[in-house]
């Protein structure tokens, strides 16, 4: 056994242990912390499986954004005094859930070990087609060129999620802003973090977006990083969540899919098919679309975290 293999086994055991911790934790906050750690460990697993794009996404979305969503909702539940009020599930429910999970996991493990070797893959076709797009990163080509239709529609899913979150507001608060993300007087450490990390984070985000055409990265991961920076700024109270009827906010939220659709429709004139790119111009068009996707993702995630409007719209 080489050192790397021993490390892999250790990593796998650690992932399992943290997963058990997530389930067994008694406090919501403890469970969320465990869940965030679990996401980061999974990201390392993806790196070891040579899937850096998936690793970046797991770290940014699976661990980062989901983590802050869970922390904020946990805090709100606690302040509402509802965290422990719900009826605790009984032992039989625990046992049957455990049995079902164990059965599913065993079946999946058995089946995955029995999958054909070498596994059928589209990699040769992808490599062949990649040249036509002018991109160097096949993952970006899948997301923005070959399966762009899925990517565009996923942004509509995000937009509907925003509408869903906003729709549980009180009628009287409609048009207003969500509650602030942080306390009224932020501590010095938080301000320091905001002033030092945010400029760096914005640079990293823009870099990950820019290199995404040729290397691991892209609009989604970069958007998640920029979203995190905006959330830090809001937690430090250097800016407040925007009003839900702000035209600028709404334009930012739809710009990604809107530009995507316009480019997709133009494809039939320029390249003979919807969502096709003309030869030689694929890369600039893709980067143009991705820039607006970046904006939409960076705006959508903090809006989802900020929640429904809770303050009246008015002067």
């Amino acid at each position, binding site marked *: 056994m080489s050192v790397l293999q021993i490390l892999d086994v250790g990593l796998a055991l650690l992932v399992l242990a943290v997963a058990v911790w997530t389930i067994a934790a008694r406090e919501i906050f403890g469970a969320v912390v465990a869940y965030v750690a679990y996401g980061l460990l999974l990201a390392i697993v993806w790196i070891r499986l040579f899937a850096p794009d998936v690793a970046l996404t797991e770290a940014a979305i699976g661990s980062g954004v989901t983590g802050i969503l869970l922390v904020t909702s946990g805090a709100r539940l606690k302040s509402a005094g509802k965290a422990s009020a719900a009826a605790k599930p009984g032992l039989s429910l625990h046992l049957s859930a455990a049995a079902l999970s164990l059965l599913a996991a065993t079946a999946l493990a058995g089946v995955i070990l*029995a999958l054909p070797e070498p596994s059928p893959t*589209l990699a040769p076709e*992808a490599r062949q087609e990649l040249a036509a797009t002018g991109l160097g990163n096949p993952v970006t080509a899948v997301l923005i060129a*070959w*399966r*762009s239709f899925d990517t565009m529609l996923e942004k509509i899913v995000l937009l509907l999620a925003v509408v869903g979150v906003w729709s549980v507001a009180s009628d009287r608060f409609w048009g207003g802003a969500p509650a602030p993300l942080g306390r009224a007087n932020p501590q010095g450490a938080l301000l320091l973090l905001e002033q030092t990390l945010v400029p760096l984070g914005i640079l990293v985000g823009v870099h990950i977006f820019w290199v995404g055409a040729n290397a691991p990265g892209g609009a989604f991961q970069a958007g998640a990083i920029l979203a995190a920076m905006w959330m830090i700024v809001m937690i430090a109270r250097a800016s407040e969540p925007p009003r839900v009827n702000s035209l600028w906010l*709404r334009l930012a939220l739809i710009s990604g899919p809107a530009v995507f659709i316009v480019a997709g429709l133009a494809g039939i004139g320029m390249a003979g098919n919807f969502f096709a*790119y003309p030869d030689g111009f694929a890369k600039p068009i893709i980067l143009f679309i991705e820039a607006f996707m970046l904006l939409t993702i960076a705006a959508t995630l903090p809006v989802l975290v900020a929640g429904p409007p809770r303050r009246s719209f008015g002067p």
Partner: protein
Amino acid sequence: MIETAAALEPTFGGPLLVLAILLPVVGVLLSFVLGGRFAERVALALAPVGLVLALAIAFLVWRSGAPVVYNIAGLAPPLGIALRADGLSGVMLVTAALIVAAAGFYARATFATPEGSTEARAPFAFWILLQGIWAALILLFIGADLFNLYVGLELLTFAAVPLVCLSGKPETLVAALRYLMFALFGSVFYLLGAALLYGAYGTLDIVLLSGRVAPLPAVWLAAGLMTAGLLAKTALFPLHLWLPPAHANAPAAASAVLSGLVVKGSFVVVVRLWFYVLPALPGDAAQVFLGALGSAAILFGSVLALRQPRLKLLIAYSTLAQIGYLFLIFPLASGQHPWTIDGWNGGLMQTLSHAFAKAAMFLSAGLIAESLGHDRIAEFTGAGRAMPVTFLALGLGGLSLMGLPPSGGFAAKWLLLRASVAAGHWVFALVLLAGGLLAAGYVFRILSPALADGSLVLKSPPQRSREHAALALAVVAVALGFAPQEFFDFLQIGRMAVAAQP
């Protein structure tokens, strides 16, 4: 394999498929950014355009007698995504366009932005979510790629769940959260199964998969996971717990769309899975199991519907039972048997007639609740005389649910009954008959007090135009009973079960 090659070639009119999906998507974006009254205007203006697109696609399918195919970006599967419209897609597209238009027309009174304000919460959300549901359904009806269909299922979930709690009452939030839990559980299982199929065959395209699928453990597990997930979304017994509170608590126009259309979206994906992706599996036992769950749903849902004191709950429980009939398509239309034509036509006819009948009944129930101020069935005495058109729509919808001639429900149940007898599935035949009797019982429970003599003062008379929207849908449900043979030939276009059998 010749047929497989033909099904992969793009055809004339294919671009219409992309436009059909993008139309409501653009509507969502425009409504979101313009907001206020524009959300309503955009939705109502796009409804007729979408209907024309749906009719045009159905016409092209009918004229060529074969699926209409489009490869997005001109890139063929497995690297690209294809859209395919066949007979099943054609009828579902037109049905969705008609019901969304009727529900939108009906909802103008409930979801108008109030005078004096530029934008209000419930109207803003309603008109956007309605278009979101419509876009998702179109995608589910013509998607030909398992991951693309997953995106459609997600769109449908995120558009449908918030509609349930639009009124903001605490009990509706509980219903919506339960719905969300079931729907997300379904999504995860579906995605897991799709990933397994991709791992085994390196493609997500339905036609390509159908030519490669073999009875391996991975395929069986994928089929089980995806079916379980989709059944949770379709609310088939015993995964139905979320449906009655969700459908009974939503605003009437939303209930009509949720009960008439949304559950059919995931149902069509189950049909695609078993008849289009997996026909090569020796799945007789699984198909009979689905039929058995459907039978249990028919009996269980009908008996519970009989006991509901409130009209909207009764109609919601009746949806549980009527969903059960849909699943008889699996044992009765699988394999290569002469009766499968009846089984297939009967299952699809049930899908269509229930969509129109149930939408009409929920719209009528909304009018009754508004005019009476309550929907307690026991206090309906004299209501039939006070609002005759509303109760006519309710009764015609009920006629189709019972399966009395002439109605789409009768045609559906008659075809299913014929197929059950021919296939020797006597139990299904008995369940079909018992289900009809039970449905007659719960429809009678509504109409009997309403038609009794009595004086009743309405809080406000129902709006004539909204009554007509409900009545129009009920008339379509009845008119389906007069469908000519050409209509049933259309339903068979692109049905792959026979072609792909080894």
